[in-house]
């Protein structure tokens, strides 16, 4: 199980955050989210407080998972892009690498063409970081982790405390 874990360190996280922030400005988007395919939010930029980010991450992942299922049914590997057009706001969802989903919310201050263009560039950059994380994870699973796992000595009391008793 451990090998599947996504472990992210400070500088990688910061690099992702920088790319997301730049995308949000360059695409003139309201909000940009980077979400994991399993429904967990990784990074966000823009007017984040206007949206329930946790629900957005989970529903986006569900949406992408369902669409993946549809793709397989008709013999496609995946659909790399989803676009939902609303009256005011639009939702642009694209896949980054194996595990990332990029969600861009934009209104009439931007356009689909601009968003597409900027997303393409940002996706390449994000992909590089994801690759690095993966390579590092593989080399660390060989033995010498950079940090001692903070969980090497979890006690039953720690767990009881989480449940408030």
């Amino acid at each position, binding site marked *: 199980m451990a090998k599947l874990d*996504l472990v992210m360190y400070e500088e990688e996280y910061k690099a992702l955050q920088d790319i997301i922030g730049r995308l949000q400005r360059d695409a003139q988007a309201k909000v940009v989210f980077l979400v994991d395919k399993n429904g967990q939010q990784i990074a966000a930029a823009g007017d984040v407080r206007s949206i329930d980010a946790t629900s957005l991450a*989970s529903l986006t992942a569900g949406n992408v998972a369902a669409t993946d299922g549809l793709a397989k049914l008709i013999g496609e590997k995946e659909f790399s892009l989803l676009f939902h057009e609303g009256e005011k706001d639009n939702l642009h969802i694209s896949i980054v690498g194996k595990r990332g989903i990029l969600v861009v919310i934009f209104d009439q201050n931007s356009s689909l063409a601009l968003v597409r263009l900027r997303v393409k560039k940002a996706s390449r950059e994000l992909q590089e970081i994801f690759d690095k994380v993966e390579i590092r994870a593989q080399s660390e699973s060989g033995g010498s982790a950079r940090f001692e796992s903070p969980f090497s000595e979890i006690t039953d009391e720690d*767990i009881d405390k989480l449940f408030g008793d």
Partner: protein
Amino acid sequence: MTFINYASREINCKIVYYGPGLCGKTTNIQWIYEQANPEKKGKLVSLATETDRTLFFDFLPLDMGTVKGFKVRFHLYTVPGQVFYDASRKLILRGCDGVIFVADSQRPRMEANIESIANLATNLKENGFDIRSIPYVLQLNKRDMPSAAPADEMERLLRFRNEPMIEAVANRGTGVIETLKACARQILLELQKG
């Protein structure tokens, strides 16, 4: 897949409630939602049919507090139990850290429980997990029903790896937190192994 973020010092774990139709998966999560401290819980998202059957999933994010300086957050999901939603069930298991199997204690549902465990094993396998080793809890729900089978009989039929087995009446909250805790404990101890 546990997501450990050293930058924001957060750990996110995904726990999936599995089991046959109407066994009480959604009821478990609803009860947790209703009694959780408002600062700790996010929104409960339910994608359900008009008759309140789960259509795709229920989702509840919970902030549990900190362990070793890391914020621990659980993402609770339920699957749709009705047999024909199998494709959706498979998708929801993707990247899960632990599974809670909610069994329906009513005697006429025993066959459905057994089938659902077999279905869980298949779907876990397709997601690269092994039902014999993933963090796992067996909940015997609906203990209040007159047609409930004795617990030891259910144990013989449904328990297969010495997993924690907890009796529950989910709509009254009996056993609900205990079940979640038994699953959380296994997940956190798993992290410890690295």
